């Protein structure tokens, strides 16, 4: 299939990716969805998860992304997320450490632990590890 879908991934640290591709798979708030050419216009919330970009018939790229939203309009996909890292660029050691820290915080009995924050930190770390291993 020809590459006919424009995609742009934007984070607070700048544009991560901009290219014309075949399709992409996005972790929507209501479940994963795939966008191909001539997809209906839509706006969806995006969860922490993995975005898969099909650049050509055989090449695929995987990114670990933070939360945000995804807008599809006239064959242009805009993915606006708080973070986006390519699987090959993920620092596995760092993610492992973050995971351990978050788990320790969740397990501790102290009152001042911010459960919500620790949980989302854990989710992010797990997501990075999963993405790195998906290569």
């Amino acid at each position, binding site marked *: 299939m020809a590459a006919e879908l424009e995609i742009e991934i*934007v*984070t*607070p*640290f*700048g*544009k991560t990716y901009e290219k014309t591709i075949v399709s992409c798979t996005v972790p*929507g*708030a*209501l479940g994963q*969805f795939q966008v191909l050419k001539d997809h*209906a*216009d*839509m*706006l*969806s*919330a995006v969860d922490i998860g993995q975005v898969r970009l099909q650049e050509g018939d055989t090449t695929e790229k995987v990114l670990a992304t933070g*939360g*945000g*939203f995804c*807008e599809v309009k006239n064959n242009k996909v*805009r993915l*606006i997320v*708080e973070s986006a890292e390519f699987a090959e660029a993920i620092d596995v050691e760092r993610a492992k450490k973050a995971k351990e820290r978050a788990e320790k915080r969740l397990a501790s009995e102290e009152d001042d632990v*911010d459960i919500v*924050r620790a949980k989302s930190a854990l989710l992010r770390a797990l997501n990075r590890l999963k993405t790195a291993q998906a290569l």
Partner: protein
Amino acid sequence: MATLREIRKRIGSIKSTQQITKAMKMVAAAKLRKAQENIVALRPYAYRMRDVIGHLTALSEKTSEIPLMQHRPVEQVLIVSVTSDRGLCGGFNSNIIRQTSHRIEEYKEKEVELYAVGRKAQEFFSRRNVPIKQDRINFFNHLAFEHAVQISKDLISYFTSGAYDRIEIVYNEFKSAVQQNVIVEPFLPFVPDPEMAEDKTQVDFIYEPDKETILNVLIPKHLNTQIWRILLESYAAEQGARMTAMENATENAEELVDNLTIYYNRTRQAAITKEIAEIVGGAEALKES
């Protein structure tokens, strides 16, 4: 009158101070450049986020059900004062502190508390019996997005728990390297920018989940972005202010050195003249005898 040695010593000390101020100016300039790069990198993200939220709030009929957009009668106010961790940056911090004090004065009928960002605000207000709810200090050196998320999470939870009905932020806006403006910005309840309400014609969009749920997810993210922008602007403004202050200090030192050098030469000349006069006088006295 100072002795020659004393003047020489003063000139030396001013010159070494001048070297320090010059170096600080250079460092500030480098940090400013970096901060500006971060601001530019944030823009596309911030604009898209703002537009989508504007679009959604314009289309949604149920914005009053969104917790972060609820206006309550104002009883308790939280003022977030964004200063720097370090001094030597001209009026940067005192402008913020003055404006913060004005706001506190204005809300004196209500209950006002402070959220101090940066060591300068924390130091100043903790000595003046202003209740400080929370402080976030000593992080500007390694400023990261996480800091913004942390602050924004604090503020959101204060607002949703009902601890405060209104949250305002006082910060320095980065105009240019030589100009900073103090801005007072309402933070919560969230009010979409009127300019954000773009075309309402886009009604055949698929929304997944419904608009209100998306807004509930996106508004906190938008607020994270706002805090991140404010921290970046304040940091850039701080470096700009420090650059200007250090530039002025370096010039002042130059002037002082010039004046002291003239004074030094004069004093030296006077001493020589005096010595000659004494010798001549002594010789005259010898001749007469």
